[in-house]
């Protein structure tokens, strides 16, 4: 066995790492389950706690939360018809009708098992694909890296948004913010207005907290004021072990969801919700009796749940090997790694291979703990759905303030967080997506660095981006990712 793989496994299997993974899974299940709390918000809130932990334990905790959140979202989708996370939206279509007909235990056990299998499949893909992709990525030069990052941004701006122009504008706003601070190549001050706090630029985690958590607090506040009480339907949760017959029914949809979810997770911008719906839709189309979908069938739960958990492993592949986040959650994971002085990308496997493998194995442990914790504690977890918002919301608000303060022990970051919160409101009012802005904040610096290094090496000759076949390939993909949605949407009705 490869010594790095062995060392990585041992690192991930240490007691403290396992405890962190278990704790992360438990917190993730709760966070994912509570409507109004997203995985990103949960990760942002616990992020400051990880600053004092060793990197491997910090990542174990966050991976546990990530995978737990994906599974937890299905619980409220099934019991309340309100997905705890956007990725669980498709689960509600069949999960809630099944729960309403008195089979909540069957629905929940299907979701738990399918999520575990989806996560396990994507772990296997992550284990085999990531090191190979990292080796390929090592041969990328500055123009190739620029085009790759550009492709990542353009896919997110065009695919993940209703309006392409607004998606691109959101990305541009993020890139404008990234220009604030010192120029990465020459160290020149840009847009700092003489303020020393702006010299180091705007920390993207501060922006994350403001853009994600603050508008969500406001939404939850409005819900609590309107006294929106959610009736739960969990009368029978005693028999959570699925029968052999149900396991046989789950086989094909789980396989479809696992495969689709892993593949879609690799693509930047295409996250859990897209994977879940595509998997549901495809499973329905190939089923002998598609009419039963929507009325409470096992296949309708297994397919989306295996897909949305498989997305986790898929998204980790580009994150670890190329440093490109597939979704906001992996962007936060990148932030967590950067805070600990580790740069995700191909060099991670070269310079710190045991750590890279420990992350991969921690992902496996996270899936295992999700299964065990969900099976053992589900009746207790469901009671947490009744946590009063009057307690939950102020706690989240205070943790947001502490989180942004503790990044650099600076009140300026707290003001930036609040400003981004207001920006988040403004963008929501405009129906403008926030994800492109956030990912531009993560990728913008790399984009500029690679572009300027490439142009410096070519003495300002822009054709360097069109002479490398890898660069041309990614630029073509970028053009397709922007033009294709435009073409398809024109055939429907454009909505801007």
């Amino acid at each position, binding site marked *: 066995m490869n010594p790095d793989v062995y060392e990585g496994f041992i690192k991930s299997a240490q007691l403290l790492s396992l405890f962190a993974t278990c704790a992360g899974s438990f917190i993730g299940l709760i966070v994912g389950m509570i409507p109004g709390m997203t995985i990103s918000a949960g990760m942002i809130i616990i992020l400051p706690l990880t600053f004092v932990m060793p990197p491997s334990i910090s990542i174990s905790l966050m991976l546990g939360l990530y995978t737990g959140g994906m599974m937890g979202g299905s619980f409220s989708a099934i019991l309340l018809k309100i997905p705890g996370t956007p990725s669980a939206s498709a689960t509600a279509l069949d999960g809630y009708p099944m729960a309403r007909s008195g089979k909540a235990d069957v629905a929940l056990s299907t979701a738990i098992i399918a999520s575990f299998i989806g996560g396990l499949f994507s772990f296997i893909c992550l284990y085999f694909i990531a090191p190979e992709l990292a080796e390929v990525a090592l041969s990328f030069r500055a123009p190739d890296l620029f085009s790759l990052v550009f492709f990542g941004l353009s896919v997110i701006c065009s695919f993940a948004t209703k309006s392409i122009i607004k998606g*691109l*504008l959101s990305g541009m706003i993020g890139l404008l913010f990234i220009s604030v601070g010192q120029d990465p190549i020459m160290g*020149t001050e*840009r847009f700092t207005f003489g303020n020393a706090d702006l010299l180091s630029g705007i920390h993207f985690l501060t922006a994350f907290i403001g853009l994600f958590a603050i508008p969500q*607090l406001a939404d939850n506040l409005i819900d609590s004021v309107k006294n929106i009480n959610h009736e739960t339907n969990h009368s029978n949760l005693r028999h959570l072990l699925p029968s052999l017959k149900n396991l046989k029914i789950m086989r094909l949809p789980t396989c479809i969801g696992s495969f689709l979810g892993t593949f879609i997770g690799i693509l930047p911008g295409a996250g859990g919700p897209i994977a879940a719906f595509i998997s549901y839709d495809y499973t329905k189309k190939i089923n002998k009796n598609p009419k039963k979908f929507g009325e409470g069938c096992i296949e309708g739960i297994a397919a989306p749940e295996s897909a949305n958990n498989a997305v986790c492993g898929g998204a980790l592949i580009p994150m670890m090997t190329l440093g490109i986040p597939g979704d906001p959650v992996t962007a936060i994971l990148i932030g967590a790694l950067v805070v600990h002085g580790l740069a995700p990308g191909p060099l991670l496997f070269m310079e710190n291979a045991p750590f890279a493998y420990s992350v991969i194995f921690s992902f496996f442990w996270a899936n295992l703990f999700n299964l065990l914790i969900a099976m053992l504690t589900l009746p207790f977890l469901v009671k947490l759905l009744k946590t*009063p918002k009057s307690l939950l919301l102020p706690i989240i608000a205070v943790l947001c303030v502490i989180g942004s303060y503790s990044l650099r022990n600076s009140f300026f970051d707290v003001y930036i967080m609040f400003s981004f919160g207001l920006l988040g409101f403004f963008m929501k009012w405009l129906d*403008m997506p926030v994800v492109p802005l956030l990912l531009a904040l993560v990728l913008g610096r790399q984009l500029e660095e690679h572009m300027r290094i490439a142009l410096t090496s070519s003495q300002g000759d822009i054709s360097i981006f069109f002479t490398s076949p890898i660069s041309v390939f990614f630029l073509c993909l970028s053009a397709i990712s922007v033009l294709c949605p435009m073409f398809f949407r024109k055939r429907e009705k454009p909505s801007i």
Partner: protein
Amino acid sequence: MRKKNIISSLAFILIGIWFSYLTYWLPTRTIPNTPGPSFFPWVIVICFLSLSILLLCKNFFDKNDKKEKSSISYSILKKVFVDRILGLKSFEDIVELAKDFFEKKVLILALIMLTYIALLPFTGFLLTTPFFFASFMYLTSEKRFLYIAFFSISIPFSIFYLFQNVFSILLPNWSF
């Protein structure tokens, strides 16, 4: 949505022009044939302005969206720039848009939060957070005062203890 898009695209164009002005004053390249510090901002500003103008044109000339609901049938440009200047009935339209932007409770939350983070550097975490916590709980329609008092003191103190002593993360202290 059309009105919002037009207003926002105009705002973006103004922001783009402002950024162009700031970028103009950045140092240019010192090494020939290499991009300087202002290169990337110029690329972004030009793309940003182009997209803002595109958004404006698309909504301004969009003939499909004429049936947008409005209490008044005037176009937004006429309402805001013509009627407002002439002092006719344009305020109603602005109020309608403002109501859409801010729910009352959200506005109060924003003000409370702003006050909290403004006071935090001076009064410290332990003195300010209980008041913020209590205000927020009251805002969520929690009316039981003993309940509010208990949790608005116990939870901030617990968080303070947890962060300072367990996680060794320093929180803002009293600084008078």
